[in-house]
């Protein structure tokens, strides 16, 4: 009887721990991640050098809205900013009179706009102050989120695609295909990833697409190895034999039976991978090899702040907190996913 009570109490403790974790830590991570993604999606509505809505020469214009939605893939091409706001030389701030109607974003400065004095402390107008070139730190932080989220998500989608195809082919076909794919994975893993990325970035030059491609095409090895292992272990299971005995074809088994089993652990690795990609991008931008200095990025902000770390150390705080929070969020979500995606809902099964 005592033994039973003992095991019960352990079980109860285990459960309460799990529920507790679900309630605040996971929820907090999810909310923060959603916040990062929405900030990234709607950055020009939060901080921009042109108004959301304004009346200019008798007609209404929506420049910040147009800038937000014109970057959506596929449909964005149809959206065009109205005429005078489209020209880079047009300065909305001086062109609009103070008495014409204009609704500005909460932070009425663009990320690269040099309007105020340099190194201003935090104030009502600049909530996080300005940097050494007089740019609003919060506006840069908001637009840096856009780059980080884009790099993190797209590069991991690419890495996942490449990893699943190569790892899946290796695990499913076996034999010579497996040999070739496995050697390819090993060759990729031999290179120290960061230095490989550095060399390629020097070669192809700055740009968001370049960073996404380079990170995506170097970070797929762990996913490929995972998918390969999942396919190989699942291939030997009874239900695959059973599926073949019902007349299923090979490719059908790979897609319907092997892939779903491999997707859950892949998603977990991808979630952690987003954190790595954000860190990599920040590191590259810090070195000036990433997205390029004309765009605001967290890594670029850190580099600018680093130059005057003795005089204005406070400038380091905002990008550091943003990087730390986003990476932490990804890790908490990845850990939570790892537990909840297991159909048996056990705590024991771990993913490499």
């Amino acid at each position: 009887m005592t033994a039973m009570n003992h095991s019960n109490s352990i079980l109860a403790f285990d459960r309460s721990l799990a529920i507790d974790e679900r309630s605040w830590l996971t929820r907090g991570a999810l909310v923060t991640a959603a916040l990062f993604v929405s900030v990234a999606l709607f950055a020009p509505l939060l901080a921009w050098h042109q108004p959301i809505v304004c009346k200019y020469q008798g007609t209404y214009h929506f420049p910040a809205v147009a800038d937000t939605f014109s970057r959506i893939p596929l449909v964005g091409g149809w959206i065009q900013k109205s005429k005078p706001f489209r020209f880079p030389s047009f300065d909305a701030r001086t062109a609009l009179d103070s008495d014409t109607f204009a609704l500005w974003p909460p932070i009425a400065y663009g990320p690269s706009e040099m309007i105020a004095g340099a190194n201003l402390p935090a104030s009502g107008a600049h909530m996080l102050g300005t940097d050494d070139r007089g740019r609003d730190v919060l506006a840069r932080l908001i637009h840096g989120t856009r780059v980080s989220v884009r790099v993190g998500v797209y590069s991991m989608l690419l890495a996942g695609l490449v990893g699943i195809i190569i790892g899946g082919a290796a695990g499913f076909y076996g034999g010579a295909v497996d040999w070739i794919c496995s050697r390819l994975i090993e060759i990729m893993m031999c290179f120290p990833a960061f230095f490989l990325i550095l060399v390629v970035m020097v070669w192809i030059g700055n740009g968001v697409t370049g960073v996404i491609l380079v990170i995506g095409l170097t970070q797929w090895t762990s996913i490929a190895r995972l998918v390969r292992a999942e396919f190989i272990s699942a291939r030997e299971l009874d239900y695959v034999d059973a599926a073949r005995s019902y007349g299923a074809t090979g490719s059908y088994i790979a897609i319907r039976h092997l892939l779903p089993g491999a997707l859950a652990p892949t998603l977990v690795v991808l979630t952690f991978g987003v954190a790595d990609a954000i860190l990599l991008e920040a590191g590259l931008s810090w070195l000036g090899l990433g997205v390029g200095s004309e765009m605001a990025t967290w890594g670029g902000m850190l580099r600018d702040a680093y130059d005057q770390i003795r005089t204005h150390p406070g400038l380091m705080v905002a990008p550091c907190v943003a990087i730390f929070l986003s990476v932490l969020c990804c890790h908490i979500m990845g850990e939570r996913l790892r537990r909840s995606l297991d159909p048996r809902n056990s705590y024991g099964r771990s993913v490499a």
Partner: protein
Amino acid sequence: MKSTSALIDVADLSVRYARGELPVLRDVSFSMDPGESIALVGDSGCGKSTLALTMMRLLPADAMVRGSIVLGERGGSGPIDILGTDERTMQSVRGKRIAMVFQNPIGSLDPVMRVGDQILEVILAGRKSARSATRSKALQLLERVGIADPSRLARAWPHELSGGMAQRVTLAMALAGEPELLIADEPTSALDGNVQAQIVELICECRRDSGLSLLLITHDMAVADALASRVCVMNENRIVDDLPIEAANASNRHAATRRLVEAAASKRQKVAATMDGGR
């Protein structure tokens, strides 16, 4: 390839693995008539399951097979040489002409797919029919294998099923393609006694309903007695006896046959003794 009226004709079948020293099947020959039910009995490791997998051509790639397996003609299509034909033909044979039920019922189900979806997949394989019609057919199949609440069970995950339930589901999946021959590889060995009897009863019913032929692989003569009219005894990778089930109890049989019959008899006595003791 000879033409035959038999359902399936296995002749001089030998299997050996590239790595292995000894053959796993040696000169196995037998044939089944339509509607017949044969029990393939023998000790563990004597090649029973290999024979079943060979008949489905599901052996690993490094298996070397000699001999012939000919599946009889049906509905205008001529006899099929199982070992010689292409993979596409085999895919149309598996499930639709020969189906199989495996020893480990829960392991035979994909753990990350709901039970109902798995049955749908089997029904849909190679066929284009309306999703709703297929759904009702899946429920009918589940009802046919004795599941009281099919629509509830269809939503269950495999790990939520008991062994007996899972074996009913795999049987439903095997029957989905309306095969002529069901190969049941130790269908009751992983189940407890009470459920064993239910599954045996269920297979009996299915055979009565559809004139299904049965190749039952077992090491339990009691199960063979209940389900089969003929028994093939395997020992050391070959068939040593092939006789009607009643004759298996006669004394002038191969040593392996006698051993199996005696084992079944002593098990029956033991069970009876325990039950008496319990009273």
